[in-house]
């Protein structure tokens, strides 16, 4: 009995570390009362480092479940947990490098970020819908507070308010959908629903539920997908994204666009994989999954087209990046229409590419925003000469976002396109074509940033050097190129992490 307890604790150690560090940061902020020191930031990053170390240590062998089977520890979960740690570390680095950030409540800032990270950990590490919702809510609550972190700013308060209203509504819809599924199957566990595990008590599989009450299952599916769609900002649940992204402090925007979105994808991927894609899954459920795939295809098509067309019309770079992240969510969904293992791997590969290029792009935005105090295209005029290294890195990120070689963004698009074309005799060719044509459209607005940096005359803005941020951005730009030229580790990592079935 004791063994089981210890093993459980061992499996949960990254979560425990994260929780401990978040509390430590909150307390030390009160004890030190220091303003302008970056000690708390380094403590947070060290905590994330320790959590990542524990995750990597157990990457190959610590697989199992704990807390009566509710928390699942597997490589798939570890992939997204590592992803979260890596994103949070960079976001905290951004907070430290953001000169305009007032330092009086910095402990809370880190506490909320780490708390959101913990929510993600539980979200991506469970087969139980109940814990999934709890993790999602933990992430959301922390995010609402973060979006409104600049209390005095009207924009920030408005962002938080919008986020709460939209978030609360969509979470409600999702929970309602889950309750319908629970009513039909008598279980919260995805594997029991799928018929790949034995349930406790009176349960039945989704296959039976589909035959007896197809309309209810369809309604439940639409509602649950809607809840996920909110988190990953997919149409028609994306309306919050531009306003919230624009109003939030830029590091928080980065967090929402990268870590929070990847978490939503992590949970969605697991939901779809366990319920529909496993080879042991009942045939009827598998066929139902194909139909869910076509629903996802429509969502993908609408999302990327809307996101791109809206991004073209923006005058604020931050808003443009917000719409672009909507479009990118659509691209990831394109991989999911395959509804098979390679599709999930492609989605994960794309998310890694998305991490590399989007963190870089937001970092560049933060860098120039800190210098000029503005976030419009025009404020970038001629900065290519004033800050050549950052601007060249910016071009690398933009090219990567467009999906052109020689950057990892191209490889991501290639993998996604390949996954979607490989199924159903190329019936999703139209979707892939639409995705690539969308990337042509996106070239226009991404290159607009390059145009203002390099092609427009400077209006005399000078740039104070920020060496730490500059190094971080140049390293990210280099990684964007290196991971195309040497993509084997990336491919190996994503395929090793696909152990859901």
């Amino acid at each position: 009995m004791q063994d089981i307890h210890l093993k459980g604790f061992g499996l949960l150690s990254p979560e425990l570390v994260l929780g401990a560090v978040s509390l430590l940061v909150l307390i030390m902020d009160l004890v030190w009362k220091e303003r302008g020191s970056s000690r708390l930031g380094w403590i947070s990053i060290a905590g994330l480092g320790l959590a990542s170390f524990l995750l990597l240590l157990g990457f190959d062998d610590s697989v199992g479940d704990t807390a009566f089977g509710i928390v699942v520890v597997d490589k798939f979960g570890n992939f997204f947990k590592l992803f979260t740690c890596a994103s949070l570390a960079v976001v905290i680095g951004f907070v430290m490098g953001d000169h305009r950030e007032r330092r009086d409540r910095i402990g809370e800032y880190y506490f909320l970020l780490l708390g959101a990270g913990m929510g993600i950990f539980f979200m991506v590490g469970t087969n139980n819908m109940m814990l999934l919702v709890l993790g999602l809510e933990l992430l959301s609550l922390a995010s609402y507070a973060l979006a409104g972190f600049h209390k005095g700013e009207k924009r920030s308060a408005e962002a938080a308010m919008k986020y709460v209203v939209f978030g609360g509504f969509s979470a409600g819809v999702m929970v309602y959908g889950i309750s319908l599924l629970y009513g039909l199957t008598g279980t919260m566990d995805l594997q029991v629903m799928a018929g790949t595990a034995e349930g406790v008590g009176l349960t039945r599989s989704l296959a039976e539920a589909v035959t007896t009450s197809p309309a209810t299952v369809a309604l439940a599916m639409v509602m649950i997908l809607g809840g996920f769609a909110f988190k990953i900002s997919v149409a028609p649940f994306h309306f919050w994204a531009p306003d919230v992204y624009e109003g939030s402090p830029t590091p928080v925007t980065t967090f929402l666009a990268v870590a929070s979105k990847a978490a939503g994808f992590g949970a969605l991927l697991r939901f779809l994989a366990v319920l529909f894609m496993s080879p042991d899954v009942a045939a009827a459920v598998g066929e139902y999954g194909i139909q869910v795939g076509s629903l996802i295809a429509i969502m993908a098509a609408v999302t990327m087209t809307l996101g791109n067309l809206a991004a073209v019309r923006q005058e604020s770079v931050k808003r443009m990046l917000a719409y672009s992240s909507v479009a990118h969510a659509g691209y990831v969904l394109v991989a999911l229409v395959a509804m098979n293992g390679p599709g999930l791997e492609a989605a994960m590969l794309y998310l890694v590419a998305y991490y590399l290029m989007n963190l870089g792009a937001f970092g560049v935005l933060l860098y120039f925003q800190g210098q000029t105090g503005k976030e419009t295209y025009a404020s970038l005029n001629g900065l290519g000469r004033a800050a050549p290294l950052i601007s060249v890195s910016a071009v690398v990120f933009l090219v990567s976002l467009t999906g052109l070689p020689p950057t990892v963004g191209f490889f991501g698009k290639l993998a996604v396109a390949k996954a979607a074309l490989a199924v159903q005799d190329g019936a999703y060719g139209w979707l892939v074509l639409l995705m690539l044509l969308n990337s042509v459209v996106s070239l226009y607005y991404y290159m607009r940033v390059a145009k203002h940096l390099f092609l427009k005359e400077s209006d005399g803005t000078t740039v104070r050097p920020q060496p730490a941020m500059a190094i971080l951005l140049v390293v990210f730009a280099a990684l964007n190129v290196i991971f195309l030229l040497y993509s084997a580790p990336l491919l190996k990592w994503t395929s090793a992490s696909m152990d859901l079935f």
Partner: protein
Amino acid sequence: MDSLLTLSESTILTWITFIPLIGMTAILCVPRQNMSLIKGIAGLATFIPLVLATMVYFGDFQTGANGYQLVQSLPWITVGEFQINYTVGIDGLSLPLVWLTTLLMFIAVPASETVPRLSKAYYALLLLLGCGITGVFISLDYFLFYVFWEVMLLPMYFLIGIWGGPKREYAAIKFFLYTLAGSVLMLIALIAMYLDQGTFSIPEMMAIGKAGMWTGPELLGMSFTTWAFWFLFIAFAIKIPCFPFHTWLPDAHVQAPTPISVILAGILLKLGGYGLIRGCFPIVPDAFRDNAYVLGVLGVISIVYGAYVALGQTDFKRMVAYSSVSHMGFVLLGMAALTEWGMNGAALQMFNHGTSSAACFLIVGVIYDRAHHRDLNAFGGVAQVMPRYWALATFGFFASLGLPGMAGFVSEAMTLVGAFQAEDTRFQILVLISCLGVVLTAAYILWALQRVFLGPLNEKYKGYPDINGREVFSLAPLLFLCLVLGIFPFYLLDWMDTSVVELMSLLKPGS
């Protein structure tokens, strides 16, 4: 196996491609004030590839040998379902274009002297462009081909966008968007074919195409190969550019600085034609044969329409730009005819257009640097103040016109004869129509020369210095080639013929 870093038969192509990239890195390390050193590095990083390519031409390359030569193949991304190799090699069709690339890159460096706001970034981007273009010509792996194909877009965008004319921003993004729209079609065809047969190797894909082994599904009533053919064709047709995909070209050409126009007309357009015979026709030969006549028609429209529009231009450079549309139409017509003469003529025409149009852009650049405008109607009598320039300009434009004895004549005549011999007799009508283009070409070139050089001297141009040594240095090798290949075309044809025969055997059924 040789070490990867020594210069040997298997690594020489890689060196030719990547020496400009090494030069670019070196330039980025030099402080920006030291322009003479930067220019020196740029000159060296383009001169060494030229020497190496010449060595390949006269040394390592076996004339008349079948298949690809100087092949280097290394595994690149070989994880799971991805099997991608770094495979490079050349045959008689790519070698002349590789050599032309190295030559024009080398010429572009001294020709850049008069570009305003010149800086080290300009030379760095120029060298990156050179690396990308050469890479396309030597790639034997379609994935690698695609990577190089896209790599050259970005430097081109900035070279036009930063150092171009008044409407440079519009022209640069238009060029970028057009080409990218084509490349995504190429990409989708590429992925579909990879999923079908599991290879990115161009020779293997050609073998599959010849055996008719593409098994992909029919979509919307069109076979898999037809889809692939049209997607690939449009990607390359935008680059050629053939009617109706040509509208980016005049803008890009007019706004680009002279050396960039030279590279654009001299090499970038050849990528389209080369792409067709390397990456489109032999890979889906049956779909190509079914649609050859359509391509012939598009070629003829390009010839006549390009020439007709050129006739109406008042901007000297815009006129030359439209003449490129017209001349590249011959390439398409020759290829579509599916005869050995036509194919040889098309390949030769690509090289000849590379030299003659590059020369024409340099010639326009010379007068533009002095007058700072290109309005054909505002010149007049320039021959009186710049006699040497007049002579060279007439030479260059006559080469472009296709005067007998000049290179353009041989290749255009060959494509027309080849098209006339085509099995599909409808091509004979196309040849007749395209002769109209030849007449129009003579008209716009002679009329332009007359307006610029002859007539009473405009007082404004009185004090103009004649063409200087640097300008002649850039121009001379191109004019020399126009003349030599006009008299001895077999210098090039001997190199190409074996590869053309091989290509024809891939394209024709059952041979």
